[in-house]
């Protein structure tokens, strides 16, 4: 597996482009400056949905990094957002020559939105303490929440109410296999927010019977003692994992994704054991 550069990891909008004009801009109100360039997007490699259609468009790029570019030159642009008007301007983190980027980008599928989803999944896989395949057995209120729910049923008892409360639930999962990290028991508890509030809506909402890959984390926000706001970050203490990012769960029938990462990680372990570099 190729080593991912910092720019490759940080950038959300990645495209192959041709520099059309240096010190120029396509967007009203953004003057061409020393480090801006008009760049034609030749191929979008990775992008959110809103920017996935930019192939063939000329956009403004604020250049960065150590690679100097000339008009007519092609490069791989690793960028994040900046200004969006009639046209768009992005800030490049780096823009190596296409040939240099080719190795890391080799084998990337054609759908830039899917590539971004996979990029996020890879980040979550790397950050996860444990990755397992498992099935949700039950969903319950955490013990601490049970007490606060009782408090809610007794008005004035000290529970606090905010539209942003996470509504924590505990999914008990039966583990089929551990793919990353160590987890000795056949079961685990995954804490997740049931709330549909703006802060929590994207987190996976588990249901009994759900099967798939779980990327499990520690140290996320959790239920706090009565009298404190429920989504204040707190130290881990009761053994529950969290799964807060939409990429933290993938059903088995999801194409590619986590299964590919697991296979790659297994391959790397095998190579390590056999001393192959």
């Amino acid at each position: 597996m190729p080593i991912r550069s910092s720019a490759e990891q940080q950038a959300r909008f990645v495209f192959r482009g041709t520099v059309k004009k240096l010190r120029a801009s396509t967007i009203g109100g953004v003057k061409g400056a020393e480090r801006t360039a008009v760049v034609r997007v030749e191929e979008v490699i990775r992008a959110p949905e809103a920017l996935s259609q930019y192939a063939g468009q000329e956009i403004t790029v604020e250049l960065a990094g150590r690679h100097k570019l000339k008009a007519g030159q092609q490069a791989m642009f690793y960028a994040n957002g900046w200004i969006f008007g009639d046209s768009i301007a992005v800030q490049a983190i780096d823009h190596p020559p296409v040939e240099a980027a080719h190795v890391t980008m080799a084998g990337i599928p054609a759908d830039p939105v899917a590539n971004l989803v996979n990029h996020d999944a890879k980040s979550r896989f790397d950050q996860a303490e444990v990755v397992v395949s498992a099935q949700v057995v039950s969903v319950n209120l955490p013990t601490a929440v049970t007490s606060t729910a009782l408090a809610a049923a007794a008005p004035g008892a000290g529970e606090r109410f905010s539209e942003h409360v996470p509504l924590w639930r505990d999914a008990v999962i039966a583990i089929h296999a551990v793919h990353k990290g160590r987890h000795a028991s056949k079961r685990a508890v995954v804490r997740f927010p049931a709330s549909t509030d703006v802060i929590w809506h994207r987190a996976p909402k588990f249901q009994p019977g759900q099967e798939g890959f779980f990327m499990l984390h520690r140290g996320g926000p959790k239920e706090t003692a009565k009298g404190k706001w429920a989504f204040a970050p707190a130290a881990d203490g009761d053994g529950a994992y969290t799964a807060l990012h939409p990429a933290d769960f993938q059903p088995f029938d999801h194409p590619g994704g986590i299964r590919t990462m697991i296979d790659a990680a297994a391959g790397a372990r095998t190579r390590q054991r056999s001393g192959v570099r």
Partner: protein
Amino acid sequence: MSTKRTTSRRARRARPRRRPASRAKHWPTPVMVIDMIPKSLSGETAQDSEPHLTVNPANSKQIVGTAFTPDPAGGPRAPVYISTDGGATWKLNSIVPSVAGSDTGTGDITTGFSGKKTTLYASILNAGNFHLQELRAANPFVPTAMTVLQDRANADQPFTHARRKGAKELAYVGVNDFNAPGGRTATVDESLNAGVPSPAFTSARVEKRTTVGQDGPQTRPASHPDGTVYAASYRWRALTGNFQANTLVITSADVVVVRDDNFGAGANPFSALIDPGDGAAGIRVVQGVSFPFMIHGTTATGQQRLGGSISIAVDPKDSSTVYLVYGDQQPGSVLTLHVRVSRNRGLTWSSDLLTVGNATNAAIAVTTSRVIGFLYQQIRGTGGSMRWQTHLRRSTNGINWSDMVLADTPATTPVKTFDPYLGDYDHLVAVGKDLCGIFSANNTPDKANFPNGVVYQRNANFSTHQLLKLDGTTVVSPSIDPFFFRVAG
């Protein structure tokens, strides 16, 4: 609709140099509504709800809007909407602290220009750790990230207001602060010298009475150049039901207005108004009102969660005159808005100047010509034909009110992706004699949905009622967009 001007150069030269502040030359029509999503983001489908707005007192062409809008490129900074032509065109500028991949940018955001050059203040719930952060940008029209001035956990619904006092900048942030002792959570964070490199903020606890354990999330500040600062909030006294089951009802709340006469300075700020009923600081404008406090919206409420609504505005010509809107539940109405006025600095209050049923997201403002503007969103119809109507009511005397429907859009589509569907607030500001505001609504390009006209920057076909991607042909599903409007005084 086009704003293209064909005036000749000679005619422009002949035009008087000074124009009334209320009718900028870039804003030719008396009413204009514009979808703020720019053309380059024609393919976007985010739920851009809970909008807010600020107009620079130093240059009314400079406007900043906000909503639950993620960075379109998915980067680590959330955008603000910027206009430098009085709201005729809009761009996004990603300058707000966020986290890469967030699909809402922040967990709450409001902004306020101080009036000193282009300095903008903002307060957010950070999308990464949900902390309250108070922010500043020297110039929100350039791509420099905002500076974090203060950061703390356990606070909700920050509502930003800023102004100048001579060379100093003052920032006020109404907040429901769960760190406050004794459950007296209604708070105004204030910095009376916010322009210095590392300004100090203090938390003025505007709740002086006992509560059920907390106040409501809405604490709204408003100020006048003479040093008068008001703040309005709900004091929660009793509740019943189960929040997790979405049945919580605030069975008794007081609507409280506090006042300070010296910009909030001194050891005991916001204590100028003493309620004769109990001798405590803060006038209880009404006592014992009731309303639902929902964790999520339902079909019966047009997908919008309800939890009260408060707005306050001071007359720019007379700080003794202050207007208040609050919401409560009345028979046959999911939430009823009441407009009231005090003409003696908040000591006594009128009965309802205007009462509106089945409505939320109240925002009130007063122009320099003393026109009262009242923005709200109202549910009309039932079932699949339910609609959200966005109204701007205006009055010069508080008795006779005009009614302008800015938007009349379906309440059942699109299906919400999160709560709040339209937002826990919208906003209205007075700019000289004009009223500028912002609201969120279904963005289907149908002129029947916008009785006073509308301009779209994003690609749209008003004949087929379809949104189109950047290629001009691929159809995009309807979503919730922020709309700016300006009504000339």
